[in-house]
């Protein structure tokens, strides 16, 4: 049963990722990416990482993707003009090479030993919070600095007279 759920959400994730790549307009791409994020969150739930599943939906699908969609609509983009000439043949090389790389990576990770038969660690907000505010307190505080810098950078870059 749980394997079926995994296969369902994995298929949704891969399908949405392919759809992100083949769509002509970036708005449809970003909407498809939201589907991908939802599928990833479902996979997190299957792995007992409930806190991250919720955070993934709220922060990624809720904040970051809304920012993307907002900017796409703000810019009023012209339709995609297609690739420049010198790149016309690139995908006929790139896709086989990518598939080859996927094959090599998959062959390697297939050999990874499954770990102990213990049940999955529950990633509750209690467990994550306890770790975040003790062992990882300094990195956690530094991320707030990072967010502040990114905020100021975004304001500066989006100014009118850059």
């Amino acid at each position: 049963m749980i394997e079926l759920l995994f296969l369902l959400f994995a298929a949704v994730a891969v399908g949405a990722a392919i759809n992100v790549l083949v769509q002509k307009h970036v708005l449809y791409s970003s909407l498809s990416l939201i589907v991908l994020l939802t599928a990833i969150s479902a996979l997190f739930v299957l792995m007992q990482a409930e806190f991250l599943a919720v955070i993934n939906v709220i922060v990624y699908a809720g904040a970051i993707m809304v920012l993307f969609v907002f900017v796409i609509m703000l810019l009023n983009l012209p339709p995609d003009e297609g690739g420049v000439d010198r790149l016309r043949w690139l995908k006929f090389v790139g896709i086989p090479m990518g598939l080859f790389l996927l094959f090599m990576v998959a062959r390697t990770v297939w050999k990874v030993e499954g770990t102990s038969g213990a049940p999955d660690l529950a990633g509750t907000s209690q467990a994550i919070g306890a770790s975040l505010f003790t062992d990882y307190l300094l990195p956690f505080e530094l991320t707030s600095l990072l967010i502040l810098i990114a905020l100021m950078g975004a304001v500066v870059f989006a100014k009118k007279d850059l």
Partner: protein
Amino acid sequence: MIPLNWYLILGAALFLLGMLGFFLKRNVISLLLSVEIMLNAVNLTFVAFSSRNGQISGQIFVFFVLVVAAAEAAVGLALVIAMFRNRETLNVDRSNLLKW
């Protein structure tokens, strides 16, 4: 229980798709979206290893990856706006001021 390998292969496939998109697409926003796909693939692998090995650190890392992704999206989209304002296009091949 789902084998760990299934998650790893799904993560590898998603990462490869994101990488293909990053190399093949020409639109700046598409490139940013491809980066998001790659970040999610890595997150999936982190969580898979974390919950299977019984260590919470991997999930903390995913938390930090989320923070960095948010910062990256904010700055990247501000740059996209600046680029569109100056060049009237989002095609990365047309931003070639530094090329001779």
